[in-house]
């Protein structure tokens, strides 16, 4: 007998300094994708977002809570998380 799932909670994260609402547990990559903002700017200056979705390509990397090069497709959002586009 399956338990009824807990009601989904919306939480606030900070995306490049702007507060946005996301579902709790959604990956940080989905915040960038929903907003149409790149996770990172590449060596030659191109905007990049996630590619592989499974944590191996590193194209989705961004600065999360001050730490650079975090794979956002593998990072669940938490209340108050600071997510920033990085170089």
């Amino acid at each position: 007998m399956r338990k009824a799932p807990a009601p989904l909670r919306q939480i606030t994260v900070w995306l490049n300094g702007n507060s946005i609402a996301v579902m709790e547990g959604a990956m940080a990559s989905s915040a960038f994708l929903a907003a149409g903002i790149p996770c990172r700017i590449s060596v030659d200056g191109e905007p990049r977002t996630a590619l592989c979705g499974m944590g191996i390509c590193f194209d989705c990397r961004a600065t999360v809570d001050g730490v650079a090069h975090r794979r956002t497709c593998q990072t669940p959002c938490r209340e108050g998380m600071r997510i920033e586009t990085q170089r």
Partner: protein
Amino acid sequence: MTSFDVLILGAGIVGSACAMECARAGLRVGIVEPSVPGGAATAAGMGHLVVMDDSPAQMALSSYSRSVWQDLSSSLPDTVEYEQCGTIWVAADEDEMDEVHAKSSTYAQAGIASEVLSSSQLAKEEPNLRSGLAGGLLVHDDGVIYPPAAAGFFLGTALSQGAQLLRGRAAVALGQGSVTLEDGTQLSANQIVVATGSDLRLVPSLPLQKRKGHLVITDRYPGFVRHQLVELGYLKSAHKLTADSVAFNVQPRRTGQLLIGSSRQYGSDDPAVDASILSRMLERAQSYMPRLADLSSIRVWTGFRAATPDKLPLIGPISEDGVFVAVGFEGLGITNAPGAGHLVADHLLGRRSAIDPTPYLPSRVPILEPSHA
């Protein structure tokens, strides 16, 4: 049988620099490279261009070669990543600050610009160093390059001046005017230059020893470190003749990646990463720069330096029959490559060198007769 004026054995940064100078001087140059050009000691190295003051002869060669790098810099392609970021020799305590002052006047006498940094000035230049260091010496004109691309540029220049690359077979024997490759091919040349880096098999008579080193490269952290940072203890480490040692040595790449070293081990031929000395090396680095601990590290590798008993390279003839060497550069192969290239070409052509070549002559060390084909 193919014939050259000079055959250079090894297309690493030293061999390629020799090839470039010889080809520019109009010699017919052949370069023998068993594997990937610039793929051995050259690829393993840090790419630090540094004037070393541990002896007058070292000072003369490294400052000469550094000035050749400066002259070359405007023609180097972007891939070489030439940056004149300077070196800071870091002093941990007052004893080391005394060394800083002594070093500063040694450099001044040799015409090398440097600036003594106080504790607060050091902290301002490099905020990620731990607090409480005594100060340092900033050598402005030292720099950083990416060695494989530099070797590639020297090699490409040589080839465009008519040099020929013979790739994929190692030289196994030298004789008077001839080199035998591993498949039996015989090449003839009036002169032969052995520039085989950490591969010592062709010159068993020379007093060369391998010293294994470790390096770590991080992901990009632009601005985290602005100069090449080396602890003064590095010199003690580099001078140890027998014991394993580590020293704090961090380099900013133009990409923003950091290269972290350094370690020295004797008596090891094994390229596998040694967890024990890697651990010591990284502990040492973190003790100077605690925030290194959190940086994302992409790769760890090892390399071998060829060292001589008096820490000076062997540049010049080893026989009467036209065999020369340019080997034994220890940790200064990258710095000294262009200077060595000039010195080798000078030897081959009987030209006067810009610096006195005597301290680097192989005849200064006891050697046996080289083996003949």
